[in-house]
């Protein structure tokens, strides 16, 4: 018999459900071509995004990539402000000034988002150095990916952050995809753990899209970074179960095949955090959460 969820666990599960539901809604409008700007849906990133948002304290800062939708939604706790930003409205999370790929919501700790692969790691190093010189508490989390880590600044950032003893987490989202190319289609394998080990940076792997495990691992990493004044690197295996950004020739999945009418789960594999949750919490509870989220208007109740 499954153990009942605690209140905190329920909140985390609800967050993952909401992130999926809101992204479905964005995807439906993307299909209807309601946006002028390129939008990168991040269906499949919800467990990690919810866990990252949960682990952040007020003093922490988050630095994102162009595929930042799930993280910005998690930090905002509402669909409206992110949606309004995508409509370039003054009511948007950044006043309609930053759009999608560069959306940063400073009041919620999202300081910088970059549409240029590898660009955000040096900036994150600067943010963490600023914390160090000002003796500000907290740490900096910077998202990157299996494509961005091919860029020189990834390696430079490892060396720089370790040398200066910066309190930061370099979090690699490995979705085995850069535009339309898988890793094997474009490069040799990179052993991130060995690479980090070569410069003395602690490394942790994340697998399976379980938000509870992710949150626990991230809390441990946050403590490690703060106590040992060190950068830490994590690599999360996940899937981006949608197109690159709207219709993209050659992209293996088409958002037209992803439909809210088919329910919240998109893929019945462990690439889909909603499917993982369904296995973990059971059909009955899954239906309960689904019904709750589907009945909400778009704002986070909690």
């Amino acid at each position, binding site marked *: 018999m499954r153990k009942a969820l605690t209140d905190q666990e329920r909140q985390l599960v609800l967050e993952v459900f909401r992130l999926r539901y809101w992204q479905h809604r964005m995807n439906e409008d993307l299909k209807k071509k309601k946006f002028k700007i390129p939008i990168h849906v991040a269906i499949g990133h919800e467990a990690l995004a919810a866990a990252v948002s949960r682990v952040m304290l007020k003093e922490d800062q988050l630095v994102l990539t162009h595929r930042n939708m799930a993280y910005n939604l998690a930090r905002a706790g509402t669909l409206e402000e992110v949606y309004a930003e995508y409509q370039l409205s003054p009511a948007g999370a950044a006043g309609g000034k930053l759009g999608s790929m560069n959306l940063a919501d400073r009041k919620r700790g999202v300081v910088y988002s970059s549409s240029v692969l590898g660009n955000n790691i040096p900036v994150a190093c600067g943010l963490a150095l600023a914390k160090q010189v000002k003796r500000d508490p907290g740490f900096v989390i910077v998202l990157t990916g299996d494509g961005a880590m091919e860029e020189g600044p990834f390696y430079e950032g490892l*060396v720089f952050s370790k040398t200066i003893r910066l309190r930061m987490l370099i979090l690699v989202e490995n979705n085995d995809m850069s535009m339309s190319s898988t890793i094997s289609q474009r490069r040799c394998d990179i052993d991130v753990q060995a690479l980090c080990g070569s410069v003395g940076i602690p490394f942790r792997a994340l697998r399976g899209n379980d938000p509870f495990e992710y949150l626990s691992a991230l809390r441990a990493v946050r403590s490690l970074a703060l106590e040992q004044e060190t950068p830490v690197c994590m690599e999360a295996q996940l899937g981006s179960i949608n197109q690159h950004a709207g219709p993209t020739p050659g992209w293996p999945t088409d958002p037209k095949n992803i439909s809210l009418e088919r329910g919240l789960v998109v893929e019945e594999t462990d690439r889909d955090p909603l499917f993982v949750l369904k296995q973990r919490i059971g059909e009955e509870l899954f239906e309960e959460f689904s019904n709750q989220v589907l009945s909400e208007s778009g704002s986070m109740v909690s």
Partner: protein
Amino acid sequence: MATYIVALNQLIVSRLAQIPNMVLYGENINNGSHIVGMTRNLKAENGTRIINVGNCETTHVGVGFGLLLNGVSCILFAKQLDFMLLGLEHFVNTYNFIRAHREAGSLGSFTICVIVCDQGFQGPQSSFNGLGDICSLARVPGYTATNLKEAEQILRTQMGKPGFRFFALSQRLFQTEILDLELVHAAEDSSLFQYSEGSDASIVCFNFSLPAGHLLRAKLEERGIECSLFSAHQVFPPNWERIKSSVLKTRRLVVLDDSKSANLLAHTLLSEVVREIPSVQTIVLTRGSDVEFGVCPDQLQVDADSVIQQLESGIAVERQVR
């Protein structure tokens, strides 16, 4: 009078002593030659931290913008302008992100103090001198240090100011005695300086050509041709009203620019002046299209006699018309 590099180093050190809680960083910033003397005697006082860093210029530039985003003021010292090409992406993209939504007052200050290797004989890969190219691509301000008073004002008004800018030194001038010219006018934003007022010709110098422009003015004055001498910097949008007022009076514009770029701010000035002021005699002294890419003396050649001849004939024609 001190040499150019000694004077510039002293100006930088004394200006930095007035700004607390800075991060000063760069390769060899506190080792060896201290970047050819540029960073000698920097002090880690008043909360200022000096960080000697490894060879990763892209990261250095991104770090500066991260510090700026979190309200910290910093200076990146760099040995060669061409190294900054590795940071070009941040000048354009990262700073655009910042400028798109943040008020300048909420930011720290980020200045790059960089040496331009324009001394000649540097070889094909170390002689990039087009500060204006980087500034133009990113629409960021860039100031060249050509003389004492101008450098002092630029450092006083720009270093420590919220936002980003370049401050560039010319290695060709390092061992020369620093110019100390009497200022007639200095724009508040340090975009334009004027050193003399004359009624016969207006000389405008870009990049590091002011010493050459100063010599040219002296030779012209020996021939009785009185000149207004200007030094213009890469500030966008430029305000050239003072230059245009001068040209309206002199009807003669001599433009000097020693940058090897094919895209010069000097050309923008010329087109504006020609469009707005009819019948202006213009003399353009730039590197031209035959820039050598190999090892060479690599300098702007100013043929003063030719300029004198052109101006004198222009003046003679004007007197005949009168």
